């Protein structure tokens, strides 16, 4: 068990160190999501309710997440380093978990800027919103990493990931928007937790089938 966790930690750390040095992903995510929030201001007609703004945030989050997810495995494939990880005696699911944690970290960094920006431009943050985002992050990272690995092995690569990801992420949007705007956010938060549980387990278990040849 400790070997497994140590593998996961080593792999996640590797991704974070690489990101720290290249600064490829997180700055792009930050810029994108803030730009999206600004665009929404002009896209929403005058007098739009707070409801619309809340919904828009989730669109922004989803597409920003895609930026991180696309890069998760395409780099490994292109440099061939995924083979190195597959040769190692570590559990395949550890590779998945390491990647998921690093994607999660990138999302958190981006949101650390995006959520205050949202509060500045539109609506003050509520704890339900933040909780919804946190729960949705888990769902996005777990499923997205698995689908990212799938897409990276195809010819279409980055083009395929949004197609694969958006239908599966739809329930997250529903849950998230519900948590943000509904009178009783508890149900939606519970739903998000359920989604996370089901799909995290599925992704964890099926990763090895997706990544071996």
């Amino acid at each position: 068990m400790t070997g497994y966790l140590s593998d996961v930690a080593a792999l996640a750390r590797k991704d974070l160190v690489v990101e720290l040095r290249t600064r490829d992903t997180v700055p792009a995510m930050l810029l994108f999501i803030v730009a999206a929030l600004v665009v929404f201001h002009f896209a929403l007609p005058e007098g739009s309710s707070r409801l619309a703004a809340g919904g828009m945030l989730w669109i922004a989050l989803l597409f920003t997440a895609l930026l991180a997810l696309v890069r998760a495995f395409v780099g490994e494939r292109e440099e061939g380093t995924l083979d190195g990880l597959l040769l190692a005696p570590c559990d395949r699911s550890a590779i998945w978990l390491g990647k998921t944690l690093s994607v999660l970290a990138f999302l958190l960094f981006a949101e650390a800027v995006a959520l205050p920006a949202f509060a500045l431009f539109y609506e003050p943050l509520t704890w339900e919103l933040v909780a919804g985002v946190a729960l949705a992050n888990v769902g996005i990272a777990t499923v997205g990493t698995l689908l990212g690995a799938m897409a990276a092995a195809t010819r279409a690569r980055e083009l395929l990931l949004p197609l694969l990801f958006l239908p599966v992420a739809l329930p997250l949007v529903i849950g998230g928007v519900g948590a943000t705007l509904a009178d009783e956010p508890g149900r939606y938060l519970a739903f998000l937790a359920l989604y996370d549980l089901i799909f995290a387990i599925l992704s964890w278990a099926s990763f090895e089938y997706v990544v071996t040849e």
Partner: protein
Amino acid sequence: MIRAYGLGRRFGERRVLKGIDFQLGQGEFLLVTGPNGSGKTTLLRLLAGLLAPTDGTLEVEIDRGRVGFLGHEPLLYRHLTALENLDLYGRLYRVSERRERAGMLLERYGLWEVRAEPTASFSRGMMQRLALCRTLLHQPELLLLDEPFSALDTQGAELLDAELGGNGPRTVVVASHQPERIAAHSTRRLALT
């Protein structure tokens, strides 16, 4: 240790390997020859477990963690330093005293001075030498080398020669389309067409 019966591998419509039969015992040194495109790389990847056969059977009686594989790609992270790369693999392969072992290998292969440089700045020869370090880091019992001399500089080539000629109960499989160099070490040959 390795047994192949009617081994074959298809990629979609293309059949790259067909009807390969051989057995390799522990400690033997197999040289795989053949022109480009004859499937040497595919065979090595099958032995490494990176590919599964589509025809026939292949038995490799060894844990994944005891296999060392050097392919066409160095399998190194460009933005990590040489030491960091070896540290990562050392962890994944559960190498005991990995820092010492990494240091020893880096010295032996003339990379000690650049140990803290990101590998993106390495020349091709240096990359291949570091890849060799990665391959040998965990003292593998089965060594799989795909055209190892092709990217090596003279210094590295000499070191590899020494390594291959060295002692140890290792089983080695080397693929090369220029077998003269390796012929001296090998005990068996397999020619692919």
